């Protein structure tokens, strides 16, 4: 069982798998995002309070969710690599950090663009917004820590550890709206039982989430290939792969 797992996690097979998966992810992501955008921006009814301004939610919420999701997966990949010494985990973590940081930035930007019509300001020092900003700083910290080391192996492990430590921030972001009174709106979609959103608005949102997720997968696969090549540049299989 374990040998099977290690074989699967070996760099050549990961490289091959990532290469094979990336186009599929990209294609399905395109379909989901196009459906989500068309349905969300054109067909979904305007909000009774916010009018059309609410439509930015179709970018904002998925990218905000993805910022948390990719942080968590980065930290988990790092943890797995740290504990079981599976090197490919570091490559996954290194590949997902910049993607996650981009999602975070996107969430921050779309959020503040939305904030202007809703709250009358681009930025407020609200717990949700602040903790999301902290997430961005954490991404920066992880990335710069990794590159600050001369020895890539140590940089990987140091970054993995910081990623794990920073994981405490994720629940804070998620629950900040319930723990403190906040400008930001509370959980709307994930309310168990009945979502506080009409289904015609919800479907495109879910499609966008799915699309973002697949897009993340696609970019991750592509970046992972680059990481693996760079890390294994001494290995025989890479030389052969480059030659052929």
């Amino acid at each position, binding site marked *: 069982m374990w040998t099977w797992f290690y074989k699967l996690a070996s760099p050549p097979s990961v490289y091959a798998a990532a290469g094979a998966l990336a186009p599929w992810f990209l294609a399905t992501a395109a379909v989901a995002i196009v459906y989500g955008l068309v349905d969300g921006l054109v067909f979904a009814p305007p909000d009774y309070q916010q009018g059309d301004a609410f439509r930015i939610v179709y970018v904002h919420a998925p990218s905000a969710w993805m910022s948390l999701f990719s942080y968590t997966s980065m930290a988990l990949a790092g943890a797995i690599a740290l504990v079981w010494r599976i090197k490919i985990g570091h490559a996954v973590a290194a590949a997902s950090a910049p993607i996650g940081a981009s999602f975070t930035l996107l969430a921050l930007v779309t959020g503040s663009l939305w904030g202007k019509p809703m709250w009358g300001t681009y930025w407020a020092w609200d*717990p949700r917004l*602040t903790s999301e900003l*902290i997430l961005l700083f954490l991404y920066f*910290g992880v990335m710069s*820590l990794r590159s*600050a080391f001369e020895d890539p192996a*140590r940089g990987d492990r140091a970054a993995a*550890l910081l990623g*794990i430590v920073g994981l405490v*921030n994720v629940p804070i972001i998620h629950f900040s709206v319930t723990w403190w009174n906040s400008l930001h709106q509370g959980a709307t979609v994930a309310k168990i039982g009945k979502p506080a959103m009409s289904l015609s608005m919800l479907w495109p949102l879910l499609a966008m989430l799915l699309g973002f997720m697949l897009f993340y997968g696609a970019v991750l696969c592509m970046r992972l290939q680059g990481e693996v090549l760079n890390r294994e540049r001494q290995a025989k299989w890479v030389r052969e792969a480059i030659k052929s």
Partner: protein
Amino acid sequence: MNVGVFEAFTLVVRRELCLSFRRPEQLLQPLVFFLIVTTLFPLGLSLQLSLLRDMSPGVLWVAALLSSLLSLDALFKGDADDGTLEQLALSGQGLMVIVVAKTCAHWLVTGAALVLVSPVVGTALGIPVAAFATMMLSLGVGTLTLSWLGAIGAGLTVGLKRGNVLLSLIVLPLAMPLLIFGAGATDRAISGTNAAGALYFLAALCVFTCTLAPFAATAALRITLE
């Protein structure tokens, strides 16, 4: 004649204190830094005294945070530079004992000292005497938490040149909740409302950090030592 964990702990603490007291002016530096930063702010605000009152908890806490942080980057760096960290790591004592001892010693010479001097700063910032107890308690708990967060950061950045800025980058985001609740507690104490909630939260944060951070800091140091 093996050396027990407790003995090793006291020995390392004594070593650190000895190093600190070897240069008495160094002991005073975080304190004086704290004093200076707290006096800077009112200046930066063009002396609008009415503002000062409202912002004193924030100023107090930011100053405490920065002055604690500034001294944190030397936590392991000095020992790494002159090779004594290797000797400590090969001492046969677990690395964790050494990390815990060094962090406690750091807190004693910065955090604890800062708490003692805080009434002076508090007076200068116009914080009422009635709020001093809460202020000192929250600062004590807060700086201890901070020393531990900083130990993780210092462990991760030891051996990096100009690690101190990277250290701030790592530690400051983690320290934000601390700041919010610490300043919140002080603020409530000043306005006379009940600060117990924020204090409890600070204490919980401290317990949480002090339980987990030793492991994280030790792991961090081990990673960078290799």
